[in-house]
């Protein structure tokens, strides 16, 4: 069982990586931080890079191979990519059901 908090830490590590690599973007490490939409500081490429970094960290830290942008994630009425909290919640549920 992978805890929500552990997933949140991985997302925060990915945000550190994104912030370090992109001088224009500074994403706040809070659960309410929006990841896309008008209120988000991320553009589409930043979001892709963030999700891919989370994928890599899932592999490196937890030995889990998981494609985040899968059919289920993209077809949900409420996007799991809306905020850091919704992403962490979605990943926790999906990974624990593998």
């Amino acid at each position: 069982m992978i805890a929500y908090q552990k997933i949140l830490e991985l997302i925060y590590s990915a945000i550190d990586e994104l912030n370090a690599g992109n001088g224009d973007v500074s994403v706040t490490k809070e659960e309410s931080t929006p990841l896309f939409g008008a209120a988000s500081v991320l553009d589409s490429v930043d979001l892709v890079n963030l999700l891919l970094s989370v994928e890599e960290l899932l592999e490196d830290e937890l030995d889990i191979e998981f494609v985040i942008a899968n059919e289920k994630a993209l077809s949900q009425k409420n996007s799991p990519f809306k905020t850091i909290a919704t992403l962490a919640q979605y990943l926790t549920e999906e990974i624990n059901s593998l």
Partner: protein
Amino acid sequence: MNNANLNSVVLITGASRGIGLYLTQYYLDKGYCVVGCSRSESTVSHTNYSHHCLDVSDEKAVKTLFSTIRKARKRLDILINNAGIASMNHALLTPLATVEKVFSTNVFASFLFCREAVKLMRKNGYGRIVNFSTVAVPFALEGEAIYAASKSAVESLTKILAKEFAEFGVTVNALGPTPILTDLIKNIPDDKLDKLLEKQSIKRFGKMTDVSNAIDFYIQPESEFITGQVLYLGGA
């Protein structure tokens, strides 16, 4: 051996025979680290070569392959999406299962490898992807409806991915070879091949060196402004 290539990693699909096997040897000789994959084992034995047996359209297996490359090599510079199968038959004699198989290998697998390759290439903000089309697309050859349709899809994929991957520093191009004497065309009657060669500007079979020459052009660092292109050999 060119020492400048020593750290560059090339992934070649369909590496165990035909053009894929030739390109594997060719880029090993040029000093690249080559990772090959195919359904069958490889005969290549080289310190800079690793081979992975898999079905290129199996998403889980492909994901595992890229995970292995990332952990072992930490990078990927070039993807040569060579794996492909042909179906040469009249449309009325082509089962749907064949259509699905051709599209699965030629289109779905090409997409899968492009997608996973860019995940690795974005790290260095650099990458070269070469997909495989065919002269059967511009020639609209009878008896090759499914094969040509699948390669048309590869061409569209190439042009659109070129746009989507540009911001990651990755170019995506395609090469359309003429018939080359490999297993892929071994069942085509000679008269059909002669008629095909007649359509080309330069009327001869393609050579392996024609293919590697065009790929060398696409993958050289100076070709950073060349993307979304399809290059047909022989003057199609």
